[in-house]
């Protein structure tokens, strides 16, 4: 038994490949069930969100221009890094109230999710692209392209797996993302930022905020430089608010309702397609 005093971690935000505190200086006091651990979580602000969108927009052209193979390898690398830091996530999930078995399952499934989409990153284009048999002498083909900058409200009842399940298909498809972590279970989210940070994911491709959903949902859905918004939840008022605000600039709205991310078949290449655009090109055939 040593009398060494532990070093406690400061939980910050993950924006533009850096870990800043919220510019607002505000915090949310988070406690585990028996109140033995108290953590000050950043209460992210509108300004934090806007900064994150600026960095997501800046990162978009580079990330979407990466080869599919390169994106696949980076997703795989995230999986490797998560595997290596399993102990840390075990401790955090248990701190947030998971049983040891559930925590282990959640980590396994999160890693498997990353590997699943790593595998899709260089294949979904082949599933969803095509050459179209038009009735004139043209070579006509359709491909998928990333929608752009995505804002997302992560599932509230799943800490790590929910976050990973939303982020993976979005970035596999070449988009960049700003995601609001679960308000109830925020601890793993910033640690996941550390995983991303050591996985060759360029800064700005994934930005993770913590904070209050009721405060930030308005900004996530009204920002005019966001191309799509993902909402995980069942609250009718929140859904209506998001869809109403999305109409300002015709953001695509992706709504995952009652989604159980822990189920065997919960992942799908169609989730990649949810943040893809369809581009069709015509070219004459002739001399």
């Amino acid at each position, binding site marked *: 038994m040593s009398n060494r005093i532990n070093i406690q971690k400061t939980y910050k935000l993950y924006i533009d490949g850096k870990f800043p505190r919220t510019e607002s200086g505000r915090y949310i006091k988070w406690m585990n069930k028996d109140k033995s651990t108290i953590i000050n979580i950043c209460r992210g602000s509108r300004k934090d969100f806007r900064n994150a969108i600026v960095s997501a927009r800046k990162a978009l052209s580079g990330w979407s221009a990466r080869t599919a193979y390169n994106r696949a390898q980076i997703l795989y690398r995230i999986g490797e890094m998560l595997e290596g830091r399993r102990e840390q996530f075990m401790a955090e999930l248990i701190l947030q109230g998971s049983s040891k078995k559930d925590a282990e399952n959640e980590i396994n499934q999160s890693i498997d999710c990353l590997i699943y989409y790593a595998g899709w990153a260089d294949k979904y284009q082949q599933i969803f692209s095509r050459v179209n048999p038009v009735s004139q002498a043209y070579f006509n083909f359709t491909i998928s392209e990333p*929608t752009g900058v995505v804002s997302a409200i992560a599932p509230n009842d799943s800490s790590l797996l929910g976050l990973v399940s939303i982020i993976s298909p979005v970035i596999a498809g070449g988009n960049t993302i700003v995601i609001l972590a679960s308000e109830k279970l925020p601890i793993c989210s910033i640690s996941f930022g550390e995983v991303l940070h050591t996985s060759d994911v360029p800064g700005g491709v994934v930005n993770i905020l913590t904070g209050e959903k009721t405060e930030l949902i308005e900004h996530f859905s009204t920002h005019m430089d966001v191309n799509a918004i993902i909402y995980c939840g069942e609250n009718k*008022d929140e859904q209506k608010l998001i*869809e*109403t605000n999305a*109409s300002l600039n015709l953001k695509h709205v992706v709504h995952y309702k009652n989604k159980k991310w822990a189920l065997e078949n919960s992942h799908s290449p169609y989730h990649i397609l949810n943040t893809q*655009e369809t581009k*069709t090109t015509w070219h004459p055939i002739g001399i």
Partner: protein
Amino acid sequence: MSKKQKWEYSPALEGTDHIQLKKQYDLFINGKFTPGAEGKYFSTVNPANEEKIAEVAEANQKDINFAVESAQKAYDNTWSKMPGKERGKYIFRIARLLQERAREFSVIETIDGGKPIRESRDVDIPLASAHFFYYAGWADKLEYAFPGKQANSLGVTGQIIPWNFPLLMASWKIAPALATGNTVVLKPAETTPLTAMKLAEIIQEADLPPGVVNIVTGAGDTGKAIVNHPDIKKIAFTGSTEVGKYIMKSIAGTDKKYTLELGGKAANIIFEDASIDQAVEGIINSIFFNQGHVCCAGSRLYVQESVAEEVIQKLRNRMSSLIVGNPLDKNTDIGAINSKMQLDKIKMYVDLGKEEGGNIYQPSCSLPKKGFWHAPTIFTDVSQSNRIIQEEIFGPVLGIQTFRTVDEVIAKANNTAYGLSGGVWTDKGSKIFKVTKDIRAGVIWANTFNKFDPASPFGGYKESGVGSEGGIEGLRGYLDLA
């Protein structure tokens, strides 16, 4: 050759004696033509001479309720239970009947909307029947369209279409909805309802079960009643971005699905290594096709500086040979503007372009006295921030700018809230792939423009819309993929 000596084409009028039009059209609900609940009618006029062609019924909330009820019944009792193979046969029938009566439909489309007969005859009507033919074949093959998914129909779909391609838009909407097992309540635009009502006759002739397709006429309020009807599962809309946003807002929180095909301000890019004569012809087609009433029109032209003078001079020469006039004349290139309202809007923008300092050019052409007409118009000396460069005019008005480098023109092309289409002209293959990849838009034409096909998806990025129509993608918006 002086102007006086200029050769004129003799008129080559398409005959109108073979068409059958009633004086009055009722609503088409539950397989029958039925007067509206209020008994109100409005006129549809020929924009080329301002004469009234026919009256159509105005549908109110009660009529929409009746149409949706009929569509729901048809869905529950017949259409959703019918094997895809049989559903498909009905759709094939519609395609065939349309082909057989193509000339009649072309003439009516031209009279009602003002577009040149050459376009309605060669583009609108053949493409409309081709859409029915293409989607008919999908009805019993949906399990192949989306691997790993089960394709389920939705129920009653509400469809609202514009006046620029009346029958073609009706077929873009109805054909995939029927193929996927849904039933339809469709509202044509108030200035161009006639080919939709003629299509209703064909649907009757094809013996489609009553209520599978309902066609209701009216203006904005009729459209609102469709959008807000609680039993409608999906809204498919083609029209302005403004109305598209309004629809999205109206159905927020309702779980209704939607496909929105909205406005555009496409960049058409001419590089110095393009075949210039071909490109000039392409510019003409990109902006003057259908009087410029085309959401994907190439209304912003970008010409590489080194060839700008040549391209603009050749464009002016070519414009002077365009024939503006009677849409029923087979020689006509540019027909009538669809309505007085649209003509006023175009004129407003042309005045604005001049006020903003643009340099206007219009060829000398005599416009008919009666009817709604606008000369083909180009503006040079305009800049990115000008409203005629940023906003959709939906008329035969082109803004021309120049550029030096590929990166510059891509930045300029993407500097718009829209993202529907784009064009690039160059003889260099790798440049085509670079530019078509970097333009943020759903349809890109390389060394061509304004081509359409049922097998080819069509849809916009950014504020040009949500979802695609045409091709396999066109099925997706009408299905619940489980």
